[in-house]
């Protein structure tokens, strides 16, 4: 596998170079009471025009994995990031703070979960969009205003010039999230990270925004990382999906591979927990027993072992790594996806 | 300011540049200005109303502006002031004053018989001023000629001349400065100083170039108001004041005196005080009617220790009612040491027995000592010492500290067992304190009594007050002897007069009384 990947890299034309390339990413979080290994040895690529969904329960590390390398963790949280995160071939780990500001403004756009708290409540929408246009793109006030109107139109906000004068609380949740998306795409980024973009919204609004995100991604030819816990959302708009559990990617592959032929018992359990549209009314819900491990004291062996229906004694000894389950579909499970005899998976 | 071009701006900037140093050099209104002729002396309170016929103004400031007919000289000698000479008839009822010729008020109005009588009319014989014997006994006054006036009394008032040396309401305002109805408008006198302004900040005075006598050595006198003792000491040490002190200007506590003494360039000067701190007994209280109790209290006091500890040595221990600086102060009595044993014996003999708090017929020897810091500064510390010294002999003394207003309610109404009093001092003594604190028939309404005995003491007092000069010393001595023999009061100490000055003051001369500001004889370096 190593050899084939190396070949692939050299064979890749610059145009096909992944927008985001993450290798061996680890994130340590320092909270007041403990040090938490929030992400362990994660790796994935996202190409131009591709949407990668990252699913998992809360606390699985899916948000931290995406935001920590960009320095976008919520205030007060200190993090140490290991491994490499390359954006269009540029290693973020060695970028200066000044360069990071440019990268954040121009190359990456981020949409956060709760649009109300993600916008400054005491400033009008206009300045909040325009400041990035002026400071990062160097537009003059007239141009930035025109561009802001254009952006609001792009995200489907009617009467954009009037809306620019509103405060966040004067808009609905859906409108606010559209504003947030407008801000995220303002710098014409190559990568859009959407962190649970529809979770805080009503179902009818969720549907609108998923359509919007999918359309914008196609239109602007962006790479997109979509962090979500809703498998339905994944099924709707993602190309590929990575399933996270306790800070590690336990399964990754195309949406069709992962959702229709899940390898990892955790992926299977997640899918089973979604109520079926044809389930009998009044029938019991399917869920997982137990709870995720405490990442300040990570367990030996497979982190999912205590909750796993397929668990075997060896699962508790050594943590499985991602092994191919056919093509790009990989899973980290000793039982369902044993490492191929060649042992090449260990060579990383 | 419609157009403000660059040239204007530069002009303004230039002006600001020249003005700024001026602003910053006169950082405080009282800071030393370019001339060296300003003497800076603080007072603790503002001068307020300088109306010479009212009592609300600050007398130390009034004393600089207005002159009396006669002045209080050293040892209580009456010396000429606006009156060059005077005669008193043998019956003591007719006073004739020959006014100094050529004296003018600082506004140019002449001081003559008319001006003098105009002033006297404003107070003499009126009820508000009846505490002054010259006013209480006033019958008539007349202009004899342009520079001679006469005052006629109904009855003899031996202290009359001394009273005329005092400040309010005795002193003379320019009739030209009054309004049409003859009411006070602004402070204009014949004194050495002229008021430039006087407000809550303080008073600014300039030399009166029309003054009839020796004019001041310096041309300005600045009297800032600094209420806090700590701040006055700091200002003095910072070189922002030239001198300070006095009972009524800006009192220096013994502790502050020590601080000032230690500061470089500051000299602390002291003089024998003219007043006395007295532990007085309420003679209407049953317990205190027993002379043994009063005697025992006196025996318990360690006056020397009190003067040394409470007053840091700025006091002379005493058993005399008046210090020698007051006329007719009487024979000096030796200050006895403390004798608790004698006190105990005196109490035992009088029937006060028992351990701890003594009792007699089931009545405990418990007394309340009412004090007020406003009336007698340092009362608190002094009262605590008294309390502990008396307790040793079997007294039980409780201290009640009250404010100014309560004291002025309780003391005149005799709501106390013991209290600390302070004699009036020069120029009011000895007649003032003898009358106010001991004469049973006199009510000042504010001061209370140190002791009264209508039957035995009053005749002695009346005799002393009426005595002519030849008999006066003996008559006062009789009063003082009676007080001593009856253990009527416990004088404790005479506080020293304390002033401090910097090296800017080359010569410092104490004023004759504490009611005045040091002025004559002050020479700046």
């Amino acid at each position, binding site marked *: 596998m190593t050899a084939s990947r190396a070949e692939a890299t050299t064979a890749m034309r610059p145009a096909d170079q992944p927008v985001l390339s993450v290798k061996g990413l680890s994130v340590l979080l320092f909270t007041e009471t403990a040090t938490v290994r929030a992400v362990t040895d994660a790796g994935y690529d996202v190409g131009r025009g591709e949407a990668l969904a990252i699913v998992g*329960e*809360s606390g699985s590390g899916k948000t931290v994995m995406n935001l920590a390398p960009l320095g976008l963790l919520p205030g007060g949280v200190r993090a140490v990031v290991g491994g490499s995160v390359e954006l269009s071939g540029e290693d973020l780990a060695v970028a200066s703070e000044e360069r990071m500001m440019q990268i954040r403004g121009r190359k990456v756009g981020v949409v956060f979960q709760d649009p109300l708290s993600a916008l400054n409540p005491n400033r009008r929408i206009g300045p909040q969009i325009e400041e990035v246009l002026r400071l990062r793109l160097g537009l003059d006030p007239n141009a930035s205003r025109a561009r802001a109107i254009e952006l609001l139109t792009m995200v489907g906000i009617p009467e954009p010039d009037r809306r620019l004068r509103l405060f966040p609380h004067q808009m*609905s*949740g*859906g*409108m606010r999230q559209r504003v947030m998306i407008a801000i995220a795409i303002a710098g014409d980024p190559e990568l859009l990270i959407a962190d649970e973009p529809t979770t805080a919204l*009503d*179902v*009818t*609004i*969720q*549907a*609108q925004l998923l*359509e919007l995100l999918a359309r914008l991604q196609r239109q602007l030819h962006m790479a997109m990382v979509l962090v979500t*816990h*809703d*498998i*339905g*959302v*994944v*099924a*709707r708009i993602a190309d590929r999906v990575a399933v996270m559990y306790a800070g590690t990617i336990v399964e990754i592959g195309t*949406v*069709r591979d992962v*959702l*229709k032929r899940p390898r990892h018992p955790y992926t299977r*359990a*997640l*899918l089973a*927990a*979604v*109520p079926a*549209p044809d*389930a*009998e*009314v*009044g*029938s*019991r*819900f*399917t*869920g*997982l027993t137990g*709870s995720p491990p405490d990442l300040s004291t990570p367990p030996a062996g497979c982190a999912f072992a205590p909750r796993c229906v397929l668990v075997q004694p060896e699962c508790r000894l050594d943590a499985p790594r991602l092994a191919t389950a056919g093509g790009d579909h990989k899973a980290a499970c000793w039982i369902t996806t044993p490492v191929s005899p060649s042992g090449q998976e260990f060579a990383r | 300011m419609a157009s403000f071009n660059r040239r204007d701006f530069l002009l303004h900037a230039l002006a600001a540049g020249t003005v700024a140093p001026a602003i910053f050099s006169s950082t405080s209104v009282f800071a030393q200005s370019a001339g060296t002729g300003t003497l800076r002396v603080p007072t603790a309170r503002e001068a307020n109303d300088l109306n010479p016929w009212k009592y609300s103004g600050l007398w130390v400031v009034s004393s600089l502006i207005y002159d009396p007919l006669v002045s209080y000289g050293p040892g209580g000698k009456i010396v000429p002031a606006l009156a060059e000479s005077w005669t008193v008839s043998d019956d003591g009822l007719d006073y004739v004053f020959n006014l100094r010729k050529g004296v003018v008020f600082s506004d140019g109005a002449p001081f003559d018989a008319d001006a003098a009588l105009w002033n006297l009319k404003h107070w003499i014989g009126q009820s508000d001023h009846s505490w002054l014997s010259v006013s209480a006994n006033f019958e008539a006054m007349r202009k004899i000629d342009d520079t001679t006036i006469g005052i006629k009394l109904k009855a003899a008032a031996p202290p009359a001349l001394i009273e005329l040396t005092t400040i309010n309401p005795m002193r003379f305002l320019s009739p030209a400065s009054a309004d049409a109805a003859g009411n006070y408008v602004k402070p204009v006198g014949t004194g050495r100083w002229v008021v430039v302004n006087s407000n809550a900040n303080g008073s600014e005075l300039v030399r009166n170039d029309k003054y009839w006598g020796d004019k001041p050595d310096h041309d300005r006198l600045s009297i800032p108001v600094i209420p806090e003792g700590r701040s006055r000491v700091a200002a003095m040490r910072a070189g922002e004041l030239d001198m300070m002190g006095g009972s009524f200007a800006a009192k220096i506590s013994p502790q502050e005196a020590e601080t000032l003494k230690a500061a470089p360039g500051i000299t602390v000067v002291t003089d024998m005080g003219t007043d006395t701190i007295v532990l007085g007994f309420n003679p209407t209280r049953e317990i205190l009617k027993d002379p043994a109790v009063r005697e025992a209290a006196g025996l318990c006091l360690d006056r020397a220790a009190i003067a040394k500890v409470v007053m840091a040595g700025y006091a002379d221990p005493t058993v005399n009612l008046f210090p020698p600086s007051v006329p007719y102060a009487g024979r000096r009595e030796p200050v006895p040491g403390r004798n608790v044993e004698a006190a105990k014996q005196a109490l035992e003999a009088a029937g006060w027995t028992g351990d701890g708090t003594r009792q007699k017929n089931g009545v405990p020897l418990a007394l309340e000592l009412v004090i007020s810091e406003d009336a007698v500064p340092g009362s608190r510390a002094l009262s605590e010492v008294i309390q502990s010294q008396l307790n040793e002999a079997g007294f039980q003394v409780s201290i009640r500290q009250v404010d100014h207003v309560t004291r002025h309610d309780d003391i005149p109404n005799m709501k106390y067992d013991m209290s600390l009093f302070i004699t009036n001092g020069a120029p009011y003594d000895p007649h003032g304190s003898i009358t106010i604190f001991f004469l049973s028939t006199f009510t000042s309404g504010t001061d209370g009594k140190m002791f009264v005995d209508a039957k035995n003491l009053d005749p002695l007092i009346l005799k002393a007050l009426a005595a002519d000069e030849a008999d006066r010393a003996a008559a006062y001595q009789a009063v003082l002897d009676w007080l001593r023999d009856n253990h009527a009061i416990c004088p404790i100490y005479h506080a020293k007069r304390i002033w401090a000055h910097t090296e800017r003051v080359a010569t410092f001369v104490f004023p004759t009384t504490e009611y005045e500001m040091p002025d004559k004889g002050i020479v700046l370096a």
Partner: protein
Amino acid sequence: MSLLTVKDLVVEFRDADTGGVNRACNHVSLDVDEGEIVGLVGESGCGKSTLGRTIVGLEHARSGSIIFDGVDILSLPGGRQRQARRNLQYIFQDPLAALEPRQTVGSALDEALIIKGERNPRARAARISEILIATNLPSGILTRRPRELSGGQRQRVCIARALLAEPKLLICDEPVSSLDMSLRAQVMNLFLSLRDDLGVAIILIAHDLSIVRQASARVNVMYLGRIVESGPSAELYAEPLHPYSHALTSAILHVDPDIERNRERTVLKGDLPSPFAPPSGCSFRTRCPNAFETCAELEPREWIEAGRSVRCHLYDEVETKQLTMAY
């Protein structure tokens, strides 16, 4: 028979500064039978929480009646109302906010029993251990504080506390929306067992439609203070009558990407209008893909047939005919 009958309930909020009126419940009627789980769905701001809160007495009703267990609550004086609502319990969306942070689970549960009037500590302990078993909580949890619990445990503690009052009806306002999907199942299954084992009736207020569908026998769909459609949940989901219900059910995402990407979805345009200035006529008309002139002029009446009801002008013409999807 009906355990709870809400009839023509009107609840209004007045904005103190503008004086505007928000009619959060506009002549709402609702029935809950004993031992029945009834779903109440709609977007935030549609009045579903207000309805629940008014039933338990957290909001003041302007008019209408709430008949619970045969008693017309709103006709009673204040003190008696509380008494009449004794068998009604409310479960909040955010269990952390509903629990006193410094209080241990044990004392929170104990307190609920003391309020109920149980004086005997031994009896209280026994009752608490029963309830822990019923809510599938470990007994070690009694000494812990809310922050030390997982989200699912917290919500189950809230439910346990509510159950100690031996309610006949639980009103659960978004009980699982703050929980991860794996935990939702635990809590939802608990509700189902409560109904089966204890006969507790439940009003399930939620915006997660798939969960409501599976749990409740009947579903009510609310829009801007009105119940626009109600009916047996299987039928309502399979064949929604109201265009709004149709949009809601259409918003349920399928986990199979092949199905999900190829199905037709009704995506509503725009947002919920301001409840202070609802549209004339049918309040849904501004977002309705089927709206026509009448919708702006008249408020639709309620059409009822065979256990299903709908408020929509699309059914004006079919009137007596069987209610079927008319679009």
